[in-house]
């Protein structure tokens, strides 16, 4: 299958960028005969998207967004300081440019002039400050709080300059500002109104029924001239996978996300639609609690890492729509991806060897799984147990209910299924889920060298040195980390042939990095 190319061919992101065609072949699965060349984008039409999520609790408060529906809805209404382009690079949005002090602790951002909110006013430094401050402070309930916590001070210097001081250097700070929780909203008395839909993005909200639908129309004063090609949007919540696929097949919607992988080959046969599959940073994993036995012994962790057939999981669980993971959370399309790491392959003898090193002849462990952890987690668990048996590792698969999975099982049981949508930079991913003391360090992993390197890499502005630092970190996490990462799952979408997409579809999030509403058009 073509999309294994990135993972196995060991292409670097740089290599991919050099040849856009290679990326398209690797990142997209297009039916044979599909014209690859796209005409110039044209304006018009209403794009209708069916989402796998959408709930009555969906709202305009940027601190709580966590499903595809609200994430795309947010990108449709809002602009952010920065944007991660489809090729993974960072481009300015509300921030026209930025500059760091040599130690990367102070950042000066220049705010683009002439951006208007749907309600009228222009975007100024005050709006930016209010939008960021909303997530800071002890009373904040925002999910983005850990991202903005390092900000010590944020001030303006005139209407178009914002100066941010961090408690330590962070070369990736502009990347962090692209986080979907951090839209620029109009300031009202020093803060933003989390119940208002007002933003400076491409579309304004006409109607929003949480859990059902949202309708938007194009913001006439939108500043980007080469983006946002639709006259309007209709976002629909269709959680049932069969209903969602029916909606696409019967022409009720133009785009759906999260195709059911068990039937995707049947969908692909339909001539009026095409399947888009993009391999990004989204990965499925099994974090172990490394504070207690048996997982506090790295030999046990290594034994478990060699006791599963990763390729088989990609083939059977993802139906080929993904790539093999190497216990390294950094995706193959990322800038500092280490493509030369030794692979933790399926090898029962090696697993037995590591068990012996740990002073064990066999191992009995329980693995907690639920479909809430990731789709296919229960089957993955059974497959894992089946393969591990050959290495005298007896895995008992404990099925947990989806309800309350994230509170009662994840990070509470010693070994459980989990997933990450992925983060755009190494530092972001590592400091979210692998750094010592991070609230979501799901394996409770403490590695001194790793944590030192993390701080070093964060404040380093020299790209070559950063590359070395992140290479070593990926080596450490792959060989000593507490998380088994068997696979990177592609984002698989169904698109009507009436919809045209750019040659490169963003891989950082689902639906072209949540930006399909702005980047796609009707052919």
């Amino acid at each position, binding site marked *: 299958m073509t999309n294994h190319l990135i993972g196995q061919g060991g292409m670097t992101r740089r290599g991919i960028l050099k040849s856009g065609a290679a990326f398209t072949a690797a990142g997209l699965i297009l039916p044979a005969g599909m014209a690859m060349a796209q005409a110039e984008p044209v304006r018009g039409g209403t794009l209708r998207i069916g989402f796998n999520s959408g*709930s*009555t*609790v969906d*709202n305009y408060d940027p601190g*709580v967004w*966590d499903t595809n529906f609200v994430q795309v809805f947010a990108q449709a209404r809002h602009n952010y300081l920065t944007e991660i382009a489809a090729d993974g690079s960072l481009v300015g949005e509300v921030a026209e440019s930025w500059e760091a002090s040599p130690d990367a602790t102070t950042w000066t951002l220049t705010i683009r002039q002439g951006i208007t909110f749907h309600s009228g006013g222009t975007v100024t430094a005050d709006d930016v400050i209010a939008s960021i401050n909303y997530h800071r402070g*002890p*009373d*904040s*309930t*925002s*999910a983005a*709080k*850990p991202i903005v916590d390092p900000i010590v001070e944020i001030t303006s210097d005139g209407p178009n300059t914002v100066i941010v001081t961090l408690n330590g250097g962070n070369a990736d700070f502009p990347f962090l500002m692209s986080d979907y929780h951090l839209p620029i909203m109009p300031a009202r008395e020093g803060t933003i109104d989390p*119940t208002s839909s007002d933003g400076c993005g491409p579309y304004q909200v006409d*109607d929003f*029924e*949480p*859990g*059902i*639908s949202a309708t938007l129309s194009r913001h006439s004063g939108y500043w980007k001239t080469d983006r946002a090609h639709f006259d309007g949007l209709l976002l*629909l*919540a*269709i*959680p*049932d996978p*069969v*209903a969602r696929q*029916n*909606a696409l*097949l*019967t*022409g*009720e919607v133009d785009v759906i996300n999260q195709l059911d992988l068990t039937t995707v080959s049947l969908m692909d046969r339909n001539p009026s639609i095409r399947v888009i599959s993009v391999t990004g940073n989204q990965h499925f994993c099994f974090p172990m609690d490394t504070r207690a036995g048996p997982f506090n012994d790295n030999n046990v962790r290594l034994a478990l890492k060699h006791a599963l057939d990763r390729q088989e999981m990609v083939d059977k669980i993802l139906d080929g729509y993904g790539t093999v993971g190497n216990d390294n959370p950094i995706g193959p399309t990322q800038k500092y991806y280490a493509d030369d790491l030794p692979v933790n392959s399926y090898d029962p003898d090696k697993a037995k060897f590591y068990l012996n090193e740990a002073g064990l002849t066999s191992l009995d462990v329980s693995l907690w799984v639920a479909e809430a952890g990731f789709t296919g987690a229960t089957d993955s668990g059974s497959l894992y147990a089946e393969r591990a048996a050959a290495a005298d590792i007896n895995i008992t698969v404990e099925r947990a*209910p989806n*309800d*309350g999975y*994230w*509170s*009662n099982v*994840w990070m509470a049981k010693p070994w459980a299924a*989990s997933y990450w949508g992925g983060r755009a930079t190494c530092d972001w991913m590592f400091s979210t889920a692998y750094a010592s003391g991070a*609230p*979501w360090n799901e394996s409770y992993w403490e590695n001194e060298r790793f944590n030192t390197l993390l701080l070093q890499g964060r404040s380093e502005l020299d790209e070559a040195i950063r590359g070395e630092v992140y290479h070593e970190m990926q080596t450490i996490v792959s060989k000593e980390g507490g998380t088994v990462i068997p696979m990177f799952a592609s984002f698989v979408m169904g698109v009507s042939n009436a919809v045209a997409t750019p040659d490169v579809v963003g891989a950082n999030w689902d639906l072209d990095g949540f930006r399909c509403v702005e980047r796609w058009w009707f052919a």
Partner: protein
Amino acid sequence: MTEIWRMISQRLLLGVLTLFIISVVIFGATELLPGDLARELLGQSATPETLAALREQLGLNESAPVRYWNWLTGVMQGDFGMSMATKMPISELVGTRLGNTLFLAFYAAALAVPFSLLLGVLAALWRNSIFDRASNALALTAISFPEFFVAYILILWLSQSGLFPSMVRITDTTSMGERLYMAFLPALTLTLVVTAHMMRMTRAAIINLLASPYIEMARLKGMSPMRVVLRHAVPNALSPIINVVALNLAYLITGVVVVEVVFVYPGLGQLMIDAVSNRDIAVVQAIALIFAAAYVLLNLLADVLSTITNPRLMHRK
């Protein structure tokens, strides 16, 4: 007539008591579920700090009895309160959904009730004929399939060919005609699912009566079979038929969750699933009470109607 009024008021009081007990049970059940609203709202991204802050904001730190009492006193004053998860008044949240659910229920009932009564009467009339056997077999086949399967088959036949839409999208501006057109497939699915029950009850009740002496008398007088059934048998068979129709109506209001999901129909069932998974207790309570009230009221209606249609009960000595 006073008998009837006494019965109605008695039953209504009992109904209120039932609703109270149900609200306690539902509240207790949702308390038993793992996780709480704050946890569900923040999901995987929760940290202890943000959780504590959100719990404080939502008033989740109060003990369960206190929260129940606050809710109950609100309901006593006719205020179902705010949905904690969506920060919208529950009356607003539930209102349109209830309208949609009732619309679908009555639409399906308008198709199913006349259809199944007619089938039932005809089947009784032509007992053991090909028609009787065929309609029985078909109705039983339809009820034996799970609802979602019936729905998918209908989508395959009637929707993928472009005759009817596979999903229902109702807005404020949707006209009645469009509504009826879009909701046809879900209504048809429900019709297929409930027909067998009503039809077979009708058939059985009438056949039961056809053996009684007064029917024989009517036949001996030389009446046509149709007249015998409609004039003499049906009025006496009304009581069981009314009961089974009421039961099915209640089912159409409360039990259509699966059909709502398949056709993406924005009804109460979907809202309730959503509220349960969000631990939005106030919304769960409100919907549970609506469902329970539907059962109580429809059962009451069935009893009143069967009393009225039965002179023996109306004029009890």
